[in-house]
């Protein structure tokens, strides 16, 4: 457990970067520091491994004041991932990953062996190990950065906006990958981001920082979206918070209805599309959705909306229904085969029911 006790960081002649921060970070969970620039979130993170020394206050890790541990030793016990991957351009991917074990005196052969295993853990081919970082894509570099942070198997991972420089698709991948890794590793992860979406996706708990280095709210992402502590948090969380909060409610109560389908073979539909009186879902021979056929026309296939998997959140259910041209969200199973359709009005009814349950609980 990491604990901040009245920690203040003040740079000369400025207002405090971090002001009287007191919080405790749970072991084995992901805690996200989020806030606008200049709110002290990165400074707070960097005080944990003494890259920044506090002006006053104490930070303890498992009850031990971090200033009583030699800085280099302390840092080797905490993995560190930063925004620019921070990989050493003159070292191969393997040697980059092997850095901290090597600093700890592990032999080169052993450190490289461990590094090769870690490539696999973060989802990279072992053939990439011999390359230089400049030969990897941005997303691959961030994966190597994570592997490097994990190399000495530290109990704590500090991640400073690690995914903010990669494109949204890769970021999404990396976030899911981190959650998957965390299930196996159960590290104590402190993660800094300015993106509230990323914070609510990754965080077991989210700490919202306000400008001036004050902790505005520290809670579960669900509660921060549902019940912002003050106007600052509400405005920072943004206008979509109602919609995003749906990401934390299960859609189990949403009914999946049968949907009329047309099977497409080599671009031709079975049956006569012109005779269709209602929207029909066009599927391939394995029942995977291809798109929609509009009633009363024989025009081309209309692309479908986002797919819904039973067990998804209400946010996904609603998005699936709203993004579909027919107003029906397509539900598919794990293999991508059509199960049926969900309907927007019914999703809304479930949302309203969930709200009333919450209200009754207050």
């Amino acid at each position, binding site marked *: 457990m990491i604990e901040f006790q009245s920690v203040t960081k003040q740079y000369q002649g400025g207002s405090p970067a971090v002001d009287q921060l007191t919080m405790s970070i749970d072991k084995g969970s992901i805690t996200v520091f989020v806030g606008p620039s200049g709110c002290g979130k990165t400074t707070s993170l960097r005080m944990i*491994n003494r*890259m920044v020394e506090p002006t006053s206050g104490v930070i303890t890790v498992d009850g031990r004041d971090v200033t009583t541990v030699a800085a*280099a*030793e*302390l*840092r*080797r016990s905490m993995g*560190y991932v*930063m925004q*620019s991957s*921070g*990989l*050493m*351009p*003159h*070292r191969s991917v393997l040697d980059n990953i092997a*850095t*901290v074990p090597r*600093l700890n005196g592990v032999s080169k052969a052993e450190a490289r062996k461990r590094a090769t295993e870690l490539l696999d853990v973060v989802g990279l081919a072992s053939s990439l190990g011999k*390359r*230089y970082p*400049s*030969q*990897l*894509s*941005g997303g691959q570099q961030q994966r190597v950065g994570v592997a*490097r942070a994990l190399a000495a198997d530290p109990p704590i991972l*500090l991640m400073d906006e690690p995914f903010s420089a990669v494109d949204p698709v890769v970021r999404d991948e990396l976030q899911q990958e981190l959650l998957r890794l965390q299930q196996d590793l159960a590290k104590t992860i402190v993660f800094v981001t300015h993106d509230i979406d990323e914070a609510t996706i990754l965080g077991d708990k989210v700490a919202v920082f306000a400008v001036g280095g004050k902790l505005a709210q520290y809670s579960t992402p669900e509660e921060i979206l549902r019940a912002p502590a003050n106007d600052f948090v509400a405005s920072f969380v943004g206008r979509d918070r109602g919609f995003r909060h749906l990401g934390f409610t299960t859609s189990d109560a949403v009914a999946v209805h049968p949907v009329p389908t047309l099977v497409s073979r080599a671009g031709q539909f079975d049956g006569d599309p012109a005779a269709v009186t209602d929207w029909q879902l066009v599927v391939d021979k394995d029942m995977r959705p291809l798109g929609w056929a509009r009633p009363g026309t024989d025009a081309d296939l209309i692309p479908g909306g986002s797919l819904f998997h039973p067990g998804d959140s209400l946010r996904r259910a609603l998005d699936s229904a709203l993004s579909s041209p027919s107003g029906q969200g397509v539900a598919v199973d794990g293999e991508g085969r059509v199960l049926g359709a969900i309907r927007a009005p019914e999703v809304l009814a479930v949302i309203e029911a969930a709200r009333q349950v919450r209200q009754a609980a207050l």
Partner: protein
Amino acid sequence: MEWFLANSGMVLERAGQHLVLALVPMVLGLVISIPLAQLARIHPVLRSVIVTASSLLYTIPSLALFIILPSILGTRILDPINVIVALTIYAVALLVRAALDAFDSVEEDLRQAATAMGYKPWLRFVQIDLPLSLPVMFAGLRVVSVSNISLVSVAALLGVGNLGMLFTDGLQRNFVTEVVVGIVAILVLALLMDAVLVLLERLLTPWTRAAKAPGPSVPLSARYVADANVHAGAGP
């Protein structure tokens, strides 16, 4: 050509002396410049002092330095040590700037990353800062190599053995062939040294030539190489 073949032994001996007189100061200059540049990088106040002082050093006329040094060092005027000390001073003048540029070319993010991983300062300097500064450092070394090789010939005026003696001797005897051979030999020597440095750089910085991943990325060192070449324009 005939004269050269008849005297090739002498020319080679002079070339050897020339090389030693140019190379030793370059190595000494590097050894002195690296800690000075690192000091300048860390302390902003020292930085301006060191940069200004090193620029001033380069404005001392070389002939004057060759003549003054014996009285300061207590050496005889013909002692090659005078030349080595003088050229080391010039090498330091050039290399402090080059080394400082080289260290500045190392991204601060990488130093931060190294520190955050638990590098202690000395090891970080040796394993991260130094290798990453090599591309820019070599640009500076190549300038010093050429500058030293040309400066050594001035020492011939004092009678210290090197290829420059082919000039002084040729002029005295009004024998143009010897002067031309001297010029060509110095040129060849400078080119050879440059080739050796280029080769050495390639050997020591394999990562700079690794095929890039898709996406635009201008090597940071390119900027500094261009900058370092500016120093080649000036000189005593």
